[in-house]
């Protein structure tokens, strides 16, 4: 019964939290109306996600978010230094082809988004067999090390979260 009414509890929780943030209040009336929508929207949007991702909510997910925020701050300073002080001819931009171990579309999307948000790398495309991700790096001395870093720092953690 609960599973039929709440086919996607994570989505329901997220919609409710977003609704509360939009109204910027903890008023019970606001929460009740939000709950109605948070239950109805997943029910009616179910045909759009026939195979939904299984995400483990918990410490690894929180740790991942904090890690990405920290990396965004650090990488911002690194890229700012590159832009301000490096001569144009000293830039070594590179295309990186990252072999993927992640399989679900959602997990790969999160990885690609993470790569784009951390300054210095932008994810560009995915191979047709979904086993390689094309990434452009602004400046890298050692492309292999850059690929290895993305794989150990982000992909390994995402493998634990999307199980």
């Amino acid at each position, binding site marked *: 019964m609960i599973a039929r009414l709440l086919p996607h509890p994570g989505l329901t929780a997220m919609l409710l939290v977003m609704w*509360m943030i939009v109204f910027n209040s903890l008023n019970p009336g606001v929460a009740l109306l939000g709950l109605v929508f948070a239950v109805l929207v997943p029910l009616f949007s179910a045909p759009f996600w026939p195979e939904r991702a299984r995400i483990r909510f918990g410490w690894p997910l929180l740790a991942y978010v904090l890690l990405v925020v920290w990396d*965004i701050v650090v990488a*911002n300073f690194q890229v700012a230094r590159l*832009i301000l002080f490096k001569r*144009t001819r000293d830039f070594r931009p590179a295309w990186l*082809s990252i072999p993927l171990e992640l399989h679900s579309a959602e997990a790969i999307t999160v990885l*690609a988004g993470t790569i784009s*948000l951390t300054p210095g790398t932008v994810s560009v*495309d995915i191979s*047709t067999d979904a086993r390689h991700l094309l990434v452009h790096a602004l400046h890298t001395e050692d492309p292999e090390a850059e690929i290895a870093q993305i794989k150990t720092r982000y992909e390994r953690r995402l493998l634990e979260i999307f199980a």
Partner: protein
Amino acid sequence: MSPVTLLPTLLDALTAFLIVLGGAFALIGSWGLARLPALMTRLHGPTKASTLGVGGIILASMLWFAHHGEGASSHELLITLFLFLSAPISANMIAKAYIHRRFRRCSAPEDVETELPAPPGERTDWATFGAPEPSETSERCET
């Protein structure tokens, strides 16, 4: 100065610091957009401005309204969330359009620029080149 008057001063100082930090990163990002040589390198400028640049200003806004305005506002969190959802996607679409125009896969092999690595594997290519043709009469490869 007593602690009661010191705290607002500290908060104001922190707010000012965050605004300057955010503004500085937005400026550096725009400067990068202007000075970097090619489209793919230029793309790295705005992704930076939209993360730490806007992030710093949003944090400053939350702090300021928490102790000067009508109370804490959570809308800044939503701005950050939507920005973080949309910024990678727009960068991705620009990059895909760029490689699609720049590296044609169906022309003669000598025309294909070798800068872009192909994914390893026999029957695979980057998705933007491997998409099925919209129709049989498509003239995508004629040019």
